[in-house]
C-alpha cells in the first residue's frame, strides 16, 4: 500500500480522484474477478490503472500545448525580442540593439506617418466591415428563425460565401467594382454616380469592407441562429402575454438572451479585422503591398509585411506586429468593459 499512501500524502487532487476511482472500482469489480486471491497482478494492474488515470489528461492536452508553445508562444516572444533590434531579412543573425527605438519611430510625428495611416485604415475598414456585418447577421438569423419554406436552401445559400477564399472573393469583387466596366458602377451610373472604387480612399475602403462583409455575414448569422434556438420559449410566451410586439420581443428578449454570443462574434470579428491582409493586398493588384497608390487602404498587417519582406527590416516589422497585439488587448479590454456595463443593469 506504500504507493497509495504516498500519493495521498501529496495532497494532489488527481491522486484523490484516482483513489476515488479505485474505491468506486473495488466493489463493482469484486464479484467479477476474485481479486483478493491474486494480490500480485492486481497490485501491478491497479498501479498502472492509477498512473493511467492521473497521467492521461495531461497526455491528451499535451499536443495542443506543445504545438502552441513551439509555433505560437515561442515565436511571439521572439518577435518581441526582434522588435528591439535592427534586423535584416537577408542577414537575420546580425542583430544590433536598438531598445525601444523601433516603437518610438512608430509614434514619431514624421517617421510614423505611414504607421498611423495604416492604423487609421485598419480601424475604418474594421468598423466598416464588422458593424454592418454583425447587424445584418443578427437580422438574417432572426428571419431564418421563422418557420420557412426552403429554409435548408436559404441557410446553405447565405453560408456559401464562407466557402470562397480571400483570394477568390477579392478577385471577383475587384471585377465587380471596376470603375470602368464593373457591374456595381454600371448599376450606380443609372442614378448618375460613378465612384472610383480603386483610387479614392473611402470608396476603396468600402469596397474592401464589402468583400469581408460578404464572406462572413452568413457564417455569423448561423452562429446567432444557433444561439437563438436555445432561448427558452417561455420568455417569448411571457413577453407576448405582456403585450410585447414582435420588435419588442426581438430587442428585449432575443438580443439580451444571446448577448454572450454577440460578444463572442464581436471579439472574433475584431481580431479578424485587425489582421486584414489578403483583401487589401489583392485589391491593389500589382501595387498590392503598398495598399493603393497613396496607401489609401494599407492595413497594419500589410504595412508589417511591407516592412518585413520587401523592405527587409524585420525589427521594424516586429515592432508593428507587437503594436497590433497591444491594440488588440486594448480593444479587448474596452469590449469587456462595455459587456460588463451592459450586463450590470440587468442584474441590478
Amino acid at each position, binding site marked *: 500500500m506504500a504507493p497509495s499512501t504516498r500519493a495521498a500524502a501529496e495532497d494532489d*487532487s*488527481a491522486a484523490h480522484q484516482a483513489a476515488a476511482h479505485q474505491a*468506486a472500482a473495488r466493489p463493482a*469489480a469484486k464479484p467479477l474477478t476474485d481479486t483478493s486471491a491474486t494480490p500480485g497482478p492486481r497490485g501491478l494492474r491497479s498501479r498502472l490503472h492509477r498512473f*493511467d*488515470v492521473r497521467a*492521461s489528461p*495531461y497526455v*491528451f*492536452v499535451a499536443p*495542443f*500545448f506543445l*504545438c*502552441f508553445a513551439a*509555433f*505560437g508562444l*515561442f*515565436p*511571439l516572444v*521572439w*518577435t518581441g525580442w526582434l522588435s528591439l533590434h535592427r534586423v535584416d531579412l537577408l542577414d537575420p543573425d546580425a542583430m544590433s540593439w536598438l531598445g525601444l527605438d523601433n516603437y518610438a519611430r512608430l509614434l514619431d510625428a514624421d517617421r510614423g506617418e505611414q504607421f498611423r495611416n495604416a492604423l487609421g485604415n485598419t480601424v475604418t475598414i474594421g468598423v466598416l466591415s464588422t458593424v454592418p456585418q454583425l447587424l445584418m447577421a443578427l437580422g438574417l438569423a432572426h428571419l431564418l428563425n421563422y*418557420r420557412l419554406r426552403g429554409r*435548408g436552401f436559404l*441557410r*446553405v445559400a*447565405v453560408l456559401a*460565401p464562407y466557402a*470562397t*477564399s480571400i*483570394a*477568390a472573393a477579392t*478577385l*471577383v469583387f475587384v*471585377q*465587380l467594382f471596376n470603375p*470602368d466596366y464593373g457591374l456595381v458602377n454600371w448599376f450606380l451610373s443609372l442614378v448618375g454616380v460613378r465612384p472610383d472604387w480603386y483610387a479614392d480612399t473611402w470608396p476603396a475602403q468600402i469596397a474592401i469592407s464589402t468583400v469581408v462583409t*460578404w464572406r462572413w455575414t*452568413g*457564417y455569423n448569422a*448561423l*452562429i446567432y441562429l*444557433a*444561439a*437563438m*434556438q*436555445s432561448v427558452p420559449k417561455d420568455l*417569448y*410566451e411571457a413577453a407576448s402575454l405582456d403585450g410585447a410586439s*414582435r420588435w419588442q*420581443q426581438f430587442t428585449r428578449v432575443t438580443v439580451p438572451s444571446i448577448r454572450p454570443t454577440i460578444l*463572442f462574434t464581436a*471579439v472574433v470579428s475584431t481580431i479578424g479585422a*485587425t489582421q486584414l491582409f489578403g483583401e487589401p*493586398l489583392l485589391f491593389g*493588384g500589382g*501595387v498590392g503591398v503598398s495598399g493603393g497608390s497613396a496607401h489609401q487602404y494599407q492595413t497594419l498587417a500589410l504595412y508589417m509585411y511591407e516592412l*518585413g*519582406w520587401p523592405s527587409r527590416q524585420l525589427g521594424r516589422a516586429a515592432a508593428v506586429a*507587437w503594436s497590433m*497585439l497591444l491594440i488588440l488587448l486594448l480593444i479587448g479590454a474596452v469590449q469587456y468593459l462595455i459587456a460588463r456595463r451592459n450586463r450590470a443593469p440587468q442584474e441590478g
Partner: protein
Amino acid sequence: MAATAPTGPAVPTAPTPAGPAAPPPPRRRFRPGAGDQDKAGPLAYLLLGLAAVVSLFPLYWTFVAASSTGERVAQSPPPLVPGGELWHNVSTAWEQAELGKALLNSTVVAGCVALSTVLFATLAGFAFAKLRFRGRNALLTLVVATMTVPPQLSVIPLYRIITDLGWGNQLQAVILPSLVAAFGVFFMRQFLLEALPTELVEAARVDGAHSLRIIWHVVFPVARPAMAVLGMLVFVQSWNDFFWPFVVLTQQNPTVQVALSAIGGGSGHDINQAVVMTGALVGTLPLLLVFAVLGKHIVGGITAGAVKS
C-alpha cells in the same frame, strides 16, 4: 445537446431544454415568435431572397466571367449570361499557374491539418470536458486566450525557424504550425460536455478499461458527428488560408490561394480578366461542391453545436 449533424439539421424541432431535469413539454415545432405569428411573412421572404441573391450572385458571376472572353468581361454593361469559352480559359489558367499542383497541394495540406486538428482537439476536448486534473481550469483559460493572439505576430520568427529547418517552400512548413487549433479544442469540449454522459466514462473505468480504450470505444463514437463538422470547418479554413502560405511558399510549389494571388496579382490592363475569374472559379469549385453536397450537415453542425460559449 441539440440534434447533431449527420441526422440532418432540417427541422430544428424544439432543442432539448437547458436543465436535464426539466420534463420535455409536448411541442410539435420550434416557435420563434410568440403564438401564431411564427410563420414568415412576405417581407421576411423578400429580405431572405435578397440575401440569398447577394450571397450567390458573385459566385454565379464568377462562372459567367470564367466562361467569357477577356473582351466580353470588359464591356459595359458586363455580361450576365455564361459564354462558351470556359474550357479554353481553364486550359489557359492551368498554363499560367500551377493549378493542378496547387489543387493537389491544397488537398494535402487541408487534409492533414483537418485530420490532426480533429484528432488532437477531440483528445484535449475530452480531457477538458470529462476528466478532472490539476490545473484544468487554468489550462482551459489559456486555450481560449490563445485564440485572441493574431497568427501574424508569430510569422517573422516562424519564417526563420522554417528556413533554418530547410523547409522553405515545402508543404510541411504550412502544415506543421496548424496541427492544432484552440477553436477546435473549445468546440469539442463544448460538444462532449453535453453529449457524452460522464457515467459512461466512469462505467468504462470501472470495467478496467484504460484511457486509449475509452477514447476508442466511448469517446470517438459519441464525438463522431462533431468531429465531422469540425473536420469540415478546419478543412475549409485551411484551404482558404492565405497569409502564411503566401509568405512561405512560392509559385513553384503553391497552394490554390498562392497560385490565385499570382494570377490576379499582375492586375493592370495587360492580363485577361476572364482567365483570372477562371482561376477563382477553379480554386473555389471544390469547396462549393462539398458545400452543395454536405451543406445541410455543415449548417446543421454550426447551428447545433458551434457556439454555446
